[in-house]
């Protein structure tokens, strides 16, 4: 596990206990999750891997407190999640959702402004993050002049600017072309590691999961539950090194079989 995982008395960053969720709609009831239990450790990069439409995004919405579970209990940093007490999370979406009419710096400060934390310390921090991650010259530019990868980095910095304790990533790279995708995921992963953030990412892409995760949870199709847990122990930190490792293929086949069984059943 790359020795990233702190074990000790501190409670896990996220703790799902027997969580179930049913969506209601006029057409009927959909059971999205059933008896889902897992934990995310402090400083860990956890990937939830599952087939499309298995309820992965639902898990992130639950952690963010955007929806309530129908059953079970969710603890964030040891405390039970309630509607009044939403955790301070950073959510990164598949479309970068940068506001086209706002300059990059204003986009990055959006979260701080909404949280009424638009003070000098936060502004300096945002500017420092932009400088550090190669967007220093684009602070006053509009998002349309950024490349896809730069936009995605700006979106991550927007998420980091509020200094959240937990990052949620919802297939953040799937809108990018293949090469950009690998480069950007390498970028984003190293930023998250360097900032020491706990992250939960959902994806259906096995290679992406393997190149980023400390630990992977393979989810079953709907209603989603944990089908298999996998500690990814590939030497090398970077996305490219991991992809080059011979172990990568072994892991890939392992997960492929798991998902294939799922489709067959």
């Amino acid at each position, binding site marked *: 596990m790359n020795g990233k995982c702190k074990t000790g008395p501190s409670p896990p960053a996220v703790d799902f206990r027997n969580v179930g969720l049913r969506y209601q709609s006029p057409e009927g009831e959909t059971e999205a999750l059933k008896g889902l239990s897992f934990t995310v450790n402090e400083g860990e990069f956890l990937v939830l891997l599952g087939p499309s439409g298995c309820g992965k995004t639902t898990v992130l919405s639950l952690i963010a407190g955007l929806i309530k579970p129908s059953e079970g209990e969710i603890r964030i940093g040891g405390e039970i999640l309630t509607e009044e007490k939403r955790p301070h999370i950073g959510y990164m979406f598949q479309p970068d959702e940068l*506001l086209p009419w706002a300059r990059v710096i204003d986009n990055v400060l959006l979260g701080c402004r909404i949280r009424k934390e638009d003070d000098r310390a936060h502004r300096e921090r945002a500017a420092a993050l932009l400088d550090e991650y190669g967007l220093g010259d684009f602070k006053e530019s509009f998002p349309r002049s950024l490349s896809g990868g730069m936009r995605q980095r700006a979106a991550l910095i927007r998420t980091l600017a509020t200094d959240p304790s937990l990052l949620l990533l919802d297939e953040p790279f799937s809108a990018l072309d293949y090469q950009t995708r690998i480069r950007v995921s390498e970028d984003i992963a190293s930023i998250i590691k360097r900032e020491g953030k706990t992250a939960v990412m959902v994806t259906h892409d096995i290679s992406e999961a393997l190149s980023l995760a400390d630990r992977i949870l393979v989810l079953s199709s709907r209603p989603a539950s944990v089908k298999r847990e996998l500690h990814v122990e590939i030497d090398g930190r970077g996305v490219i090194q991991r992809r080059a490792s011979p172990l990568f293929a072994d892991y890939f086949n392992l997960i492929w079989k798991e998902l294939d069984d799922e489709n067959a059943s």
Partner: protein
Amino acid sequence: MKMPPELSTQRKTYLSGLRRDKRRILTSQILLFVLFFTLWELFVRVGWLDGFIFSSPSRAAGMMGKMIADGSLWLHIGVTLGETAAGFLIGTLLGAVIAILLWAFPKAERVLDPYLVVLNSLPKIALGPVIIVWVGSGVSAVITVTILVSVVNTVIGMASGFREAEGERLALLKSFGATRLQTFLYAVLPGSLPTMISILKINIGMAWVGVIVGEFLTSRAGLGYLIVYGGQVFRMDLVMGSVLVLSLLAALMYLLVVFVEKEVRRLF
């Protein structure tokens, strides 16, 4: 556009082709304009058209010239422009306020939806006599008609613009814990700016319709008044001249809106 000194032959041919097309289109446009007015004038002069019924460019221009000389044309233009501006601004603002309220109370929007649809398809001019009875004849009635003509489509257009601008950004804003007001100020309002501009464009046209019809119904001054008065006393020079002035004003106002639109779109 800065160009390097060396251009390939194909590039030169292409660019000169572009310029030639542009020139030809502009020339044709001017020619069409000149042709229309020349033929009109000519047909009246040689007697193929009855100048008493069709007027002619020179007679209409002469009439307008006389009215400019005695200053009365400025009064009528002023009245019409004032009514148009007032009706346009009030109608658009009122519509925007109602649309914001509907966005803030989605349940109310669902309740009111069928009424908005019916009101939208109702020809508002049908309410003309009612308005004259309620607000009295004259300028206030004209402005009220103008407001009515533009307010419902503003409400419907802006409400859907707001919904569109909210769309997927809602999740992002919610993840930061944004309130409804913050969502509106940070995403919905700036995001629906392009919709607003196209509504303004429509409303300018609507306002002209409202004002002229309003002046037809009840007025003592304005270009609509001149047109209706000229028609009643069979002074077609006055009618045609007023219509031409009206076209010119409408074109100028449209150009203004197009300019504003261009400035706003640059941000998106």
